[in-house]
C-alpha cells in the first residue's frame, strides 16, 4: 500500500456513489467526463495504492488538475472531505520525494524569494508610493499576490476600506505570502517555514482585524488567531450598515450583470451585486466560482481552466450578461488572460472592489 495506512483508509471509504461528481465544476464543464470529477480521483488513488494503476508523472499531474474549489468537501454522503484529502495526498507524495509538475515545483522558491508566486520580488507594492511604510492601524488590508498585476484592485479596495474605517494600513512591498496556495499544492512544510515572517509583519502593525482581497488567505489569518474577513464580507456589511452609500444607478435596459464569487466565500459577492443591480442582476450556476485554487490547474497546461472559463462565459452570454463582476483578484487575472487570448467580445469584466467604487 503506497499511501500508508491512514490515507489508504480514508481513500477506501469512498462508496463510489458519484454524489461529488455532480457538484464538481470540471465534471460539469467537460460534459460529465468521469475522469474530471472527484470520484475518479479517489478511485484511481485507490488503484494506484494497490498497484492496479501505475503511478506515473501523468498521474501526479492529474492530482493537481482541479479547480480546488472544495465543493466536493460538502457533497459526500459519507462525509469524506475529498478536496482536503487530495491536498493531503499531494503532501504525502511530496514528502515521499516525488516531484510535482514543473510550475508547481517552482512555487516554494518563488514564494520564498519574492513573497508571491509571480516570483518578482520588487513588484508587490507597485500600487503604493515608493516610500510607503506600514504603520500601526486597526485594520490591515491584505492585498495578495495579484495586486502587482492589477493595481486597480488594491487601489480601489484600499480606498473603500479607508472610507469605511479610516484607520487602515497594508504591508506594502514586503507583504509576505499567506502560504495558502502552497498549502493547497501540498507544501505545508514550506508554509511552516514562511509563516513566521507573516506573523511578524502583522504584529508590527497590530491590527484588530484583517481584510483580505485574497479570499483563500482568510483561512491563514484565522489560523493565526486573528479576526479576518474577506473583502466581500467587509463590503457587504458596510453596504448593509450604510457606511458605504451608493449612487442611484442608471438603469440601462440592455444591461445585465452577473458575478463570479470566490469558492471560499459564503456568496457575499452575489448578494452585493444583486443589492446593487436589482433587476439587472442575474445568477450563474453554482459551479461558477473561482479563486486562487484555480491557479494550481492554470499552472499546468491550462486546458482545464480554459474549459471552465469558456463554459462560464457561454453561460453568461446565454443570460445576456454584458458585465461580469469577479470577486477574486486571481480569478479576475486568469479570466482576463483567457478573454484577451481568445478575443472574447461583448462582455466586460470588472473586479468587485472597482465595481463598488464606481458606484459610490
Amino acid at each position, binding site marked *: 500500500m503506497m499511501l500508508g495506512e491512514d490515507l489508504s483508509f480514508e481513500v*477506501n471509504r469512498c462508496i*463510489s456513489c*458519484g454524489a461529488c461528481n455532480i457538484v464538481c465544476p470540471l465534471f460539469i464543464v467537460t460534459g460529465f*467526463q468521469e475522469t474530471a470529477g472527484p470520484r475518479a480521483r479517489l*478511485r*484511481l488513488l485507490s488503484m494506484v495504492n494497490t498497484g492496479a494503476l501505475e503511478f506515473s508523472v*501523468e498521474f501526479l499531474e492529474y492530482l493537481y488538475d482541479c479547480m480546488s474549489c472544495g465543493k466536493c468537501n460538502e457533497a459526500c*454522503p*459519507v462525509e469524506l472531505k475529498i478536496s482536503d484529502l487530495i491536498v493531503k495526498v499531494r503532501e504525502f507524495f511530496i514528502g515521499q520525494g516525488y516531484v510535482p509538475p514543473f510550475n508547481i515545483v517552482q512555487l516554494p522558491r518563488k514564494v520564498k524569494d519574492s513573497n508571491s508566486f509571480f516570483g518578482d520580488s520588487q513588484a508587490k507594492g507597485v500600487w503604493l508610493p515608493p516610500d510607503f511604510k506600514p504603520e500601526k492601524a486597526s485594520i490591515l488590508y491584505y492585498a495578495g499576490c495579484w495586486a502587482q498585476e492589477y493595481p486597480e484592485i488594491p487601489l480601489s479596495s484600499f480606498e473603500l476600506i479607508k472610507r469605511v474605517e479610516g484607520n487602515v494600513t497594508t504591508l506594502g512591498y514586503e507583504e509576505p505570502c499567506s502560504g495558502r496556495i502552497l498549502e493547497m499544492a501540498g507544501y505545508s512544510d514550506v508554509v511552516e517555514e514562511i509563516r513566521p515572517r507573516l506573523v511578524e509583519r502583522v504584529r508590527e502593525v497590530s491590527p484588530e482585524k484583517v481584510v483580505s482581497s485574497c479570499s483563500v488567505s482568510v483561512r491563514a489569518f484565522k489560523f493565526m488567531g486573528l479576526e479576518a474577513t474577506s473583502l466581500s464580507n467587509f463590503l457587504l456589511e458596510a453596504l448593509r450598515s450604510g457606511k458605504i452609500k451608493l449612487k442611484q444607478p442608471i438603469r440601462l435596459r440592455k444591461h445585465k450583470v452577473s458575478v463570479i464569487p470566490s469558492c471560499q466565500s459564503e456568496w457575499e459577492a452575489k448578494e452585493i451585486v444583486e443589492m446593487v443591480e436589482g433587476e439587472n442582476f442575474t445568477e450563474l450556476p453554482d459551479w461558477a466560482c473561482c479563486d486562487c485554487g484555480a491557479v494550481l490547474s492554470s499552472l499546468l497546461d491550462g486546458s482545464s481552466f480554459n474549459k471552465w472559463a469558456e463554459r462560464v462565459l457561454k453561460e453568461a452570454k446565454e443570460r445576456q450578461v454584458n458585465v461580469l463582476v469577479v470577486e477574486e483578484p486571481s480569478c479576475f487575472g486568469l479570466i482576463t488572460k483567457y478573454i484577451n487570448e481568445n478575443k472574447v467580445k461583448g462582455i466586460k469584466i470588472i473586479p468587485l472592489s472597482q465595481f463598488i467604487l464606481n458606484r459610490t
Partner: protein
Amino acid sequence: MEELVGKLEGILGEGEVLTDEISLASYSYDASGYIYRPEVVIRPGNIDELTEVVKVLMDYRVPITPRGAGTSLVGGPLPVNGGAVIDLQMLNEVLEVDEDQGIVQVEAGVKVAELNELIDGRFMPINPDGTGSSTIGGLAAEDAASPLSSVYGTVKDLILGMEVLLPNGDLVSLDGPVNRSRRNLIDLLIGSEGTLGIVTSVTLKLPTEPEERMAYEITFNDLMDAMSLAEEMEKAGIRQAAFEVYHNLGLVMGSAETEAVGYLEIMGPPECVNAWDSRIRELSNRVGVTSINPIDPYEADTIWKERAKIYEVAKATKSALKVGSFKVSPSSTRDFVQEVDRTSNRMKLKSISVINPLLGWVIAILLHKRSESKEVERAEKGMSEIVRISNNMESSMGYGLGVGINRISADIDEGFVQIYSAIKRSFDPYWLFNPGKLIERD
C-alpha cells in the same frame, strides 16, 4: 486498434475518444466495487454521432458497453470483455416538456436531478442512488426501483415510450400511443441492461407531488411482525407510499436490540391520511410492534430520496457495501433474510437487509472494508452464495438494481436463459452489446 481509434476520431473529433491510462481507469468502475478496464472510451455528443460510432464498432466486432452515470451496484456499465465503453451523459437534451400533462421527452443522459426541475409541482419518484446523479437511460436499462415504488411502481411504470439504437445500427422509435404489442416491446427493452439496445431517448410521465403526507418510525422485535403489519395495512386499504424495514440496523449501528426498524410513509388527500393514521396505530398495536413514532415527512424524504439510512451505515462503520437485490415471495421473506444473516456470519461480515414487505423486495448488503483485500473477497463470495440460496428459495435476482455481472445461468433459470438467449441472438448475433451481463452466454 489505431485504425479504429482514427475512424472514431473522424466522427467525434479528438478529445472525446479516450485511450490514455488515466481515462481508461476512470471508466473501469461503478458503485459495485468491481473493476474492468475498457480499451477505449467514447463520448458522443449527440444521437447521430452515437449511431455512427456504433456502426463502426460493430464493423470491427468490438464489444460495446453503454454507460450512464456509473452508479450501478452490480457492475452493469463495466466492460467485462474489454472493448469500448460509450459514455452517454452528453446526450442530455430535454426534447419536449408538456407541463399540463406532466409528460417529458428527454435524451438518455438526462439526470434525475434535472428531471425534478422540469415541471413545477411534479417530480421523479425513482431516484435510486438518492443524489439525483443517475441518468434516465441507466434507470430504464435497470428498470430502477425506489422505496416509493409501492405507489409509483418501477421506472417502466413511468415510461410511455422510447427511442432505441439497435445493434444493427437502426434507430427505432417506440414513441406514440401505446397498444399492447408496442407496450410488450417497450417492456422487453426496459430492464434489458444494455444487452439489446442503447436507449437514446425516453418519454415519461412525472407524477404530481402528494397533497398530504405522514411518516413513522416503527420498531419490531420480529421481522414477521413487520410483514404482518404490511399485510394488515393492505387489507385495510391503506396506501403505503413507502415501507422499508431495516433488519440489523440497530445491531450494525451499535444501538437498539430490536430486530428491525421500519420507516413508513402514507400519502394522499388529507381526509384519507388522517383516517389512515389512527387505523395504522390500531393495527400496530394489534400486531404487537415495539414502538411507533411519527417522524417529520422531511426526514422520511431524506430516508427515501437521499438513501440516508444506507449512507449512515457506510459512514458510521466506515465500510464499503456489497449489494444484491432480490424479489422474494412474502412467505419466504423471513427465511431468506435469515439466510443472508447466516451467510454474512460465515463470512465474518456484518450485513443489513432492507425489506419492502409489500413488494417482496429485499436488498442484501454486506459491509466490508475495501482496504482489506481478504474482506473484499469474502464479500464477493458471500454475495454469490446469497444469489445461489435465493435461487433455491424461488426468489429472483435483480429487482431494481439489475443483475449485471452476477449473470443468470441456465442452472438458475433455464426457461429465462433459453428465451432470452434467442432474443439476444436475433437482436445481436455477435453478442457485442454489453456482453457478460444479465445472462450467461449459452
